[in-house]
């Protein structure tokens, strides 16, 4: 197959499509749009971005809400960075932050929905943007590199994602921060530069005429330019038209007007010759200026411009400088690219609808606004500035039992929800039974100028189509909530609709924990229904009671860890053990004291390597002398590192956790962090634990003479009961 000029020429597209069709029966490549009009999805690449953006502007302005969806090159940069039950809200944010910083967005679906009261239906305009962070301007582009998760690429490939379209034709972008930075740099360059140093090469002054050829050439050029100048002056004085003095000069020298001044065009000269000319002009002609900048519109060819006076000369210089700066600014503005779409959504302050979209929003922030803040509180307040109204359909579906009933207790994944809530759209061929209490919403799709009442591109996990599904689910959910679009005169004011208030700006921070974050306050609450089943599986998690162990002896099972711990701290001392990956595990104790006791004890045992420590029940965990342990806060520190090793123990080593000093941190510190943790979450259960002081955890009170350890298998228990 001829693959190296893919998607370049439209003429090739059809042949390509045929080629593809043989390989993939359900192809969804760009070119396929020409084959089957009923499956159209508005694909936008850099070639049709400008008109598509203009069109989208009007659609978004008229829209009642805009749904969106993203496709990324990956989700987690290491297995232990996946979402766990043992992740506190701040850890969860760190994981999302890491994901958004490392992976690239390759496809961006935007679908404005507008209520058409005449037809009593929604009109949707699904757009599918291919995005690629190409470096359009020199210097720090959007990003130097990005990560790909193998399984994610494979997943995209499974749904026939067109990587070529993305890399060849994807729309580039600059974040606001990058644009500001670029402009700032530009300003500093143009302000610093003295007007004289405009000539492209500063080395000109140093250039020496060494070679004979150079000297001859310089001599000849001096004469020629002198002649030309004399001719100009003569002509202006005599009022007659300028004529080329000799045949020879006419060939090489041609006069044009540059910024209202006569100028000599220097054609077909080497760069060395040009430099010589520049030198000659500097030396011999006060009223001539050499102007050259490669590849720019203001002055495409090298010129020698005649100026009346020094003031005129300075004026010309300023003009050229201004012109160049404008060009550079235009270039940067043009590089903004796809961010125009984000700016549009932001400035129009429309209701934004996504499905389980916390990570998506983080990507949008990181790619199109600026670097993600360090804490979740800062982040949510920043997000609110740009996107004041966000609805997460997954939260909507999970917070109401009637929805859960509708999706027949099935999962609330997007495609499932779409099939159950909007069967009339999902499978139009099957005549849907419209129940009296379940009015089905009608959605018409408009792609370019064509309207489809039965539109189904069927391309799941294509951002444009996913955005469309999300919008449909949202619209249907609104009707279930009792919002009657017919009662409202368009535009429908969804943003201030009372029935929607409890959903607006509530996003799943973590689906697995059922933690819903309120973007207005930064507070986390558990969702009322959705993941209750999941929650029951694990007992309440008290983060201050957790130690994290890593570099564990291989094949040590959670049960064995629990047994060892129980032998030392008592039968009920361990609430749960959870394996983070094959090298690391969380141990949650029933009492907070046990955390520091354990760390102390471990330290003592490791320092004295004698029969006592060999026989100690903990030796099974400490075997090999490599096992490391730390408090939950160290876990946070490890998560916040930009490094991502595949195994947790390697990660900890790479981050360079100096465990010995850290584990003995004074209790005050722990307490402080605990306060912070609880201020974050409104969870009443968690608050109860925070007042517990960590008296027993202080290093001094936890010193165990090793002799005692042999006698009692429950030394800590004994100590505590004293």
């Amino acid at each position, binding site marked *: 197959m001829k693959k190296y000029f893919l998607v370049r*020429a439209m003429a090739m597209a059809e042949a390509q499509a045929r080629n593809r069709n043989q390989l993939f029966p359900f192809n969804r490549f760009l070119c396929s749009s020409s084959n089957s009009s009923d499956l159209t999805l508005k694909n936008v690449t850099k070639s049709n971005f400008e008109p598509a953006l203009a069109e989208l502007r009007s659609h978004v302005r008229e829209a009642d809400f805009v749904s969106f969806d993203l496709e990324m090159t990956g989700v987690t940069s290491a297995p232990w960075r996946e979402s766990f039950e043992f992740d506190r809200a701040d850890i969860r944010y760190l994981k999302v932050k890491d994901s958004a910083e490392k992976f690239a967005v390759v496809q961006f679906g935007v679908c404005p929905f507008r209520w058409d009261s005449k037809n009593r239906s929604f009109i949707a305009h699904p757009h599918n943007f291919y995005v690629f962070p190409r470096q359009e301007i020199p210097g720090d*582009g959007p990003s130097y590199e*990005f*990560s790909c998760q193998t399984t994610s690429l494979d997943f995209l490939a499974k749904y026939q994602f067109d990587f070529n379209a993305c*890399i060849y034709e994807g729309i580039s972008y600059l974040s606001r921060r990058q644009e500001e930075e670029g402009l700032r740099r530009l300003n500093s360059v143009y302000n610093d530069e003295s007007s004289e140093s405009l000539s492209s090469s500063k080395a000109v002054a140093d250039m020496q005429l060494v070679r004979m050829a150079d000297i001859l050439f310089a001599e000849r050029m001096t004469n020629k330019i002198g002649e030309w100048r004399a001719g100009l002056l003569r002509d202006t004085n005599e009022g007659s038209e300028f004529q080329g003095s000799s045949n020879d000069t006419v060939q090489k020298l041609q006069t044009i007007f540059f910024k209202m001044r006569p100028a000599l065009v220097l054609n077909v000269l080497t760069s060395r010759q040009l430099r010589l000319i520049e030198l000659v002009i500097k030396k011999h002609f006060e009223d001539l200026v050499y102007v050259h900048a490669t590849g720019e519109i203001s002055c495409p060819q090298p010129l020698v411009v005649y100026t009346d006076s020094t003031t005129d000369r300075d004026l010309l210089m300023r003009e050229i400088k201004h012109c160049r700066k404008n060009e550079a600014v235009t270039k940067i503005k043009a590089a903004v690219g796809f961010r125009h779409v984000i700016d549009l959504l932001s400035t129009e302050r429309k209701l934004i609808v996504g499905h389980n979209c916390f990570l998506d929003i983080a990507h949008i922030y990181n790619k199109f606004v600026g670097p993600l803040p360090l804490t979740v509180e800062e982040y949510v307040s920043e997000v609110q500035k740009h996107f004041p109204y966000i609805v997460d359909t997954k939260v909507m579906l999970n917070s109401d039992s009637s929805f859960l009933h509708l999706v027949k207790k099935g999962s609330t994944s997007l495609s499932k929800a779409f099939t159950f809530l909007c069967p009339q759209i999902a499978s139009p061929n099957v005549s849907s039974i419209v129940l009296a209490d379940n009015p089905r919403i009608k959605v018409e799709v408009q792609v370019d100028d064509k309207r489809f009442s039965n539109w189904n591109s069927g391309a799941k996990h294509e951002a444009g189509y996913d955005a469309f599904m999300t919008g449909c689910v949202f619209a249907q959910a609104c009707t279930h909530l009792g919002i009657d679009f017919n009662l409202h005169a368009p535009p429908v004011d969804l943003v201030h609709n009372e029935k929607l208030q409890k959903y607006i700006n509530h996003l799943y921070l973590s689906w697995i924990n059922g933690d819903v974050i309120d973007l207005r306050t930064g507070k986390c609450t558990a969702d009322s229904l959705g993941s209750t089943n999941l929650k029951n599986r694990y007992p309440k998690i008290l983060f201050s009671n957790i130690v994290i162990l890593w570099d564990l002896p291989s094949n040590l099972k959670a049960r064995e860890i629990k047994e060892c711990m129980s032998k030392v701290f008592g039968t009920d001392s361990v609430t749960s053990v959870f394996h983070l990956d094959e090298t690391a595990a969380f141990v949650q104790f029933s009492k907070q004291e046990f955390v520091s006791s354990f760390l102390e004890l471990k330290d003592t045992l490791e320092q004295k390597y004698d029969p006592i420590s060999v026989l100690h029940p903990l030796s099974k965990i400490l075997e090999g002398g490599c096992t490391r342990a730390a408090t939950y806060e160290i876990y946070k520190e490890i998560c916040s590192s930009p490094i991502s090793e595949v195994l947790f123990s390697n990660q900890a080593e790479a981050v360079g956790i100096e465990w010995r000093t850290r584990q003995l941190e004074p209790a005050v510190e722990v307490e402080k962090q605990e306060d912070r943790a609880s201020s974050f979450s409104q969870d009443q259960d968690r608050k109860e634990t925070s007042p517990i002081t960590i008296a027993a955890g202080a290093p001094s009170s936890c010193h165990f003479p090793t002799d005692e350890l042999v006698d009692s298998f429950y030394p800590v228990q004994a100590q505590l009961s004293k």
Partner: protein
Amino acid sequence: MSPRLQMLHKRFFCTKIFPTAADHHFRLRRHQNQWLIKQVTKSNFSEALGEIRTHISNSDFIAVSLQQTGAYSAPWQRVLPIDIAETAYLKAKRAAERFQVLQFAVCPFSVKASKLIAHPYNFHLFPRDELKIAMPSYSFSCQLSYLTTMAREGFDFNACIYDGISYLSRAQELAAADRIGHSSPSSYVVPSSSANSVADSVFTERTKSRVRHWVNACKDSNKKTEDALINTLRKLVSGSELYGSRPCLIINVCSERQVQLVLEMLKEVVDVVPMVVPARGGEVQAIRVVLTSSEEDKNLLEKELQDMEEEHNKRVRGFREVIDLISTSQKPVVAHNTLNDFTFIYSKFLAPLPSSMDEFRSSLLLVFPHILDVNHLMKEIGPFEKLNNLPASISYLRRKFFAPIDMEVSHRAEADNVQIHGRNVLRISELFAKLCSVLKINPETFEDDYCHLSSALQCHANTFNPSLTSSEDPIDEDVRIWNKNSRRISINNLVLLWGLESGISAAKLKALLHGSHEVFSKEFDVQMVDKNCAVIVFWTTGFSDRFLRIMDSGEIFCESLKDMISEGLAAASYKTYRSVCKLGLWEADLADALDKALEKTKRLTEAKSEEDLSILCTVVRFKSCSFGFLVDVDGFFDLEAFWTEECQGTWLLNVLTVTVPMNLRNIIKSLGETCPNPPLMLGRLISKQLP
């Protein structure tokens, strides 16, 4: 050249700058139609594997060339002229671990009387998790500029991701052995059954009689027709089953030892083929004995089993089969940038890269005994030329020397089917042939002895040092400063300077420094490493140390420099740069990395000065193990061996100083990896003060 031709030439020049698909294609047809590189994806891999196997065994050399998704995450992380072998390796290691190989071109070739016979293949790879075991790669990085370059060359990313060949490294295959679950009887090396215990012989005898009985029963039943019921009963009693159309018997085993015994015993029985039935966890659960009707039938079955194993290997190892083929052929491998290519090959197809260059070199040479770098050979001819890319090298040779090489490529281009991907591998072969001809090296090796390269080539083999040196000394600590200039200097005369105004030019910095202090009065040079970090070269020995001392003491320089210091100018020796690479502080700015490295050193020196807490002396007892290498285990901290004292025969008592337990851990870890006998007993940690 006629003016017309000149015009034509010009036109081509233009298209180079703005290549459109059409004339790109046109150009290819015109100039490269005689070259065809066979493109291999998942769909034609089996076929290509068979072909390349014969080509490899019939050729004298194998050229390789890789296309990666990137090479460095920040400008300073490239291999620079100022890098010594060690830092260059660490940088290459970092790249190999981070990025991915998407194309791997292999070209077995021979040079026979100025004729190059080449068989180029280009394999498209993608680290797909084919076996659902989270291998070979969880994630990888892509450098934008590399993707853009690949796109410009018309690389088909869809084909690569959809249809690329996956692989597992040797280490990964071992690690996943229990999850892959397949082992052939041939993998059980039967040891000379020296000491058979009574239990062993009882087991063997019992099994033997059972097998005999079963074999006889089967042969009997073949002869006379029996009642179906009796037949079934007999089968039940003897535990006989069918394997395909052949009868088979399952023998349960409960240890590796028994597996060996059974396999040994079955050798004596004619017409049976043993097969190992694995259980979960990689252990053997049972042995299936298949009875064949004749010797021919036995061969047939064995062939079948062998094919099955090959199929399985192909599925598991994927592209690594090709690497293994190259390795087992033991033929010289020719590449253009060996350090880069072989760190990638090692990390993707062999095992995780070791932490030291020497270890890397020695274990790599076990797999590929002869590695030739054309870039290195080039230096023989044009030592001062900047010939970093292949086309430049080839045209340089063409200009300067007359070395005509006829090229014969096995795959002929068919119309419309021109592929350029992987053409570098042909260029490498061509360049190598030309170089041999220019350097008067006879590349024709003896048919029967591939392992002995002609002595001329031998001295060029296995050099990984990226710098110009032809010295074989691995601890060569002289570096170059410029790409173009070959002037060399000891790393002791280098000082790194950072905290500079962003984007400052080397000339401007040099002007600022010039004459600001006595140390800058003699000859010195400035070279930018990245946008706000520079390296200063003092051509006068000893000035670098003086400068660093001055920076430390805060002695006043001239005003401009004082301002710079107040704005955060900092300096450090080359040692700090080495630590940055060793500690893996791969920050985007070298300045940040240097700051971090200094901070760490400072923390350690502070710890050293503190009493009691500070020095932890470890008594580590090892069984006959020397400590010579230990001093550089963690390079950053110079470990001191206090005393060595013999005690209890072969046991050595060693005391080492380390400052932080974490490093102790590293030492123990590295000892465990390096020593034949890992630490038997960790000594006690005792607090001790330094004398």
